[in-house]
């Protein structure tokens, strides 16, 4: 595919490009691993369910599983919904795919996008055809289990005009491993289409996580994203870029709960490029032990009558952890409305005592407060997605205390 070569050339030139944020990683320590792919998913159902993946795939419109670099399963159970690996999509669609290939994310963004292009394997291609409104979610699952492994799938989601879909992506380590996960995800939300995207990460103590994500929302489209990462990891850095055109809307929330020595640098960049577009970013950070989180949020308003709001909250559960919030509002047009609120602190002792006076043990009172802290108001998600998120938040509230 000659058209493809220019992206590989750009990637080769960016292989040493240090990322704008977060800890740099020596890529030479990691390489894609092959596995037999004969895994019994039911044997790891606890892990899968904790990241929102239903093993028996009931109430799922389609699914995609990848272990290391091997695609285990890809299946659509719904008319108007295509699910395949990116390699298969490139074979079928060839150059027709180019308008969606490294457009929401630049291939030469940094060394991680570059390695995904040059060495990455797999990744899902999901297309929701024009006007199809799929009420039950699609689930995708990326698993790692081998040491020194690089998992770098390139995912592309295309929601055509007037379509609607909810995607649940669960990424997890099946055991304690040393690895690097670089998931590149490009999402294209067509005119008046809607994508609800829920991504849940549960990694192990020695893993480096570098998702690279870009979303383009066309006129009148809606994008709702809910990112959850919890338990241990070594380092994490991600700053998805979301571009909104006329009257498009985005609601972006992230919940990151870290322990051990984990370090995360996480946030969103939103570009309000179309008139009347709007976005809200909500982040909830929880640190315990010696973990650190930098929570960024950056909104650029560059069109008339756009609105943006940032809500960053941090909760420290130990004296040795740290949370730094960095909200940035950038207005480059006169009649925009951009606002932010931020607060970082520890659990309120007064609230704990009050809950204890209502009959709760101290640990239950703390768990209730953490659960409340984690709750963000998500607009109109399907009930099955909402209950899955609430289940995950309950697991987090218990696990962080």
């Amino acid at each position: 595919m000659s058209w493809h070569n220019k992206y590989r050339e750009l990637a080769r030139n960016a292989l040493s490009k240090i990322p704008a944020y977060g800890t740099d990683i020596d890529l030479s320590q990691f390489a894609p691993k092959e596995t037999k792919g004969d895994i019994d998913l039911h044997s790891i159902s606890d892990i899968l369910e904790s990241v929102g993946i239903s093993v028996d795939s009931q109430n799922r419109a389609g699914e995609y599983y990848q272990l290391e670099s091997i695609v285990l399963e890809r299946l659509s159970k719904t008319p108007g919904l295509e699910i395949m690996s990116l390699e298969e999509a490139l074979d079928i669609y060839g150059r027709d795919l180019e308008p969606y290939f490294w457009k929401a994310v630049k291939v030469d963004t940094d060394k991680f996008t570059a390695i995904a292009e040059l060495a990455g394997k797999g990744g899902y291609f999901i297309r929701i055809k024009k006007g199809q409104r799929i009420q039950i979610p699609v689930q995708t699952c990326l698993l790692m289990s081998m040491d020194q492994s690089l998992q770098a799938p390139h995912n592309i989601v295309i929601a055509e005009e007037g379509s609607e879909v909810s995607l649940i992506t669960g990424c997890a380590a099946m055991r304690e491993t040393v690895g690097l996960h670089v998931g590149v995800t490009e999402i294209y939300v067509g005119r008046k289409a809607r994508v609800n995207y829920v991504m849940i990460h549960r990694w192990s103590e020695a893993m480096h996580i570098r998702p690279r994500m870009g979303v383009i929302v066309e006129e009148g489209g809606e994008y709702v994203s809910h990112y959850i990462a919890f338990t241990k990891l070594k380092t994490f850095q991600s700053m998805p870029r979301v571009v909104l055109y006329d009257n498009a809307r985005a609601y972006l929330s992230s919940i990151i709960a870290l322990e051990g020595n984990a370090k995360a640098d996480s946030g969103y960049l939103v570009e309000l490029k179309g008139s009347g577009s709007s976005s809200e970013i909500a982040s909830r950070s929880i640190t315990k032990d010696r973990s650190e989180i930098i929570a960024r949020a950056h909104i650029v308003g560059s069109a008339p009558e756009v609105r943006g709001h940032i809500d960053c909250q941090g909760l420290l559960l130990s004296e040795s952890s740290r949370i730094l919030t960095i909200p940035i509002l950038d207005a480059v047009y006169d009649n925009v409305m951009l606002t932010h609120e931020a607060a970082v602190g520890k659990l309120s002792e007064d609230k704990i005592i009050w809950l204890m006076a209502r009959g709760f043990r101290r640990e239950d009172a703390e768990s209730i407060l953490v659960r409340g802290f984690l709750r963000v108001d998500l607009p109109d998600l399907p009930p099955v997605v909402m209950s899955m998120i609430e289940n995950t938040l309950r697991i987090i509230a218990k696990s962080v205390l």
Partner: protein
Amino acid sequence: MRILEAKELSVETNGKLVVNKVSLHVDTGEIILLFGPNGSGKTSFTMALLGHPNYKIVGGKIYFYGNDITAYSLEERISLGLTAAFQFAPELKGIKLGELAREIAERHCVSEDTLNELAKILQIGYLLDRYVNVGFSGGERKRVEIFLTALQSPKFVVFDEPDSGVDRDSVVLISKAIEKMFELGLKGALIITHTGFLTKYLEASRAYVMINRRIVCEGPAEIIKDHIIKYGFNMCVMKRSR
């Protein structure tokens, strides 16, 4: 039967004496009033009865059904059926009132029917789907505090100023809810109040007046209340000095 008794109770918080040798008791079926100006030590006394870890008992004893509970922790006291309805309940963003109410009711084996009945008495059904106390009015907060306290099915409650800063209608609803609590197993109550408004709708037997960290007088609730309304809190101090 004596439910609660404080004997010569002295309390410190942040190294400062906030309750000085207070003695007070409540018998079965009694509603007792505790009057006193702001800053006299009423809430500190409540917190000490509750077992709040920041309120250190430096003298005296607390008895509950005749047992010395002075050294008991907050959790131990709550498990005995002693609790307090706070003057200022906190806002709990992210926790819906209905969810919290059901959790409290389940823990204390209070039925869904009783929960619904209490919500109806206190007219707070429309608040169940909202976050606890977030954006609630003063009256709503007080009614919600009584509601959640009632769901614990307590034996004894200190109500800390349930009638302060609320409209008359809310006072009526709160008094009905306290009556209902007695039907459900409440054995006695101490109501801290500035005005005694609640006694228009609830019958209190005795009253104490606390000024400057001490109990300065006690007597039949109606007489004490009438004197305070006519002469203010100093009446008790003068009477005592004579």
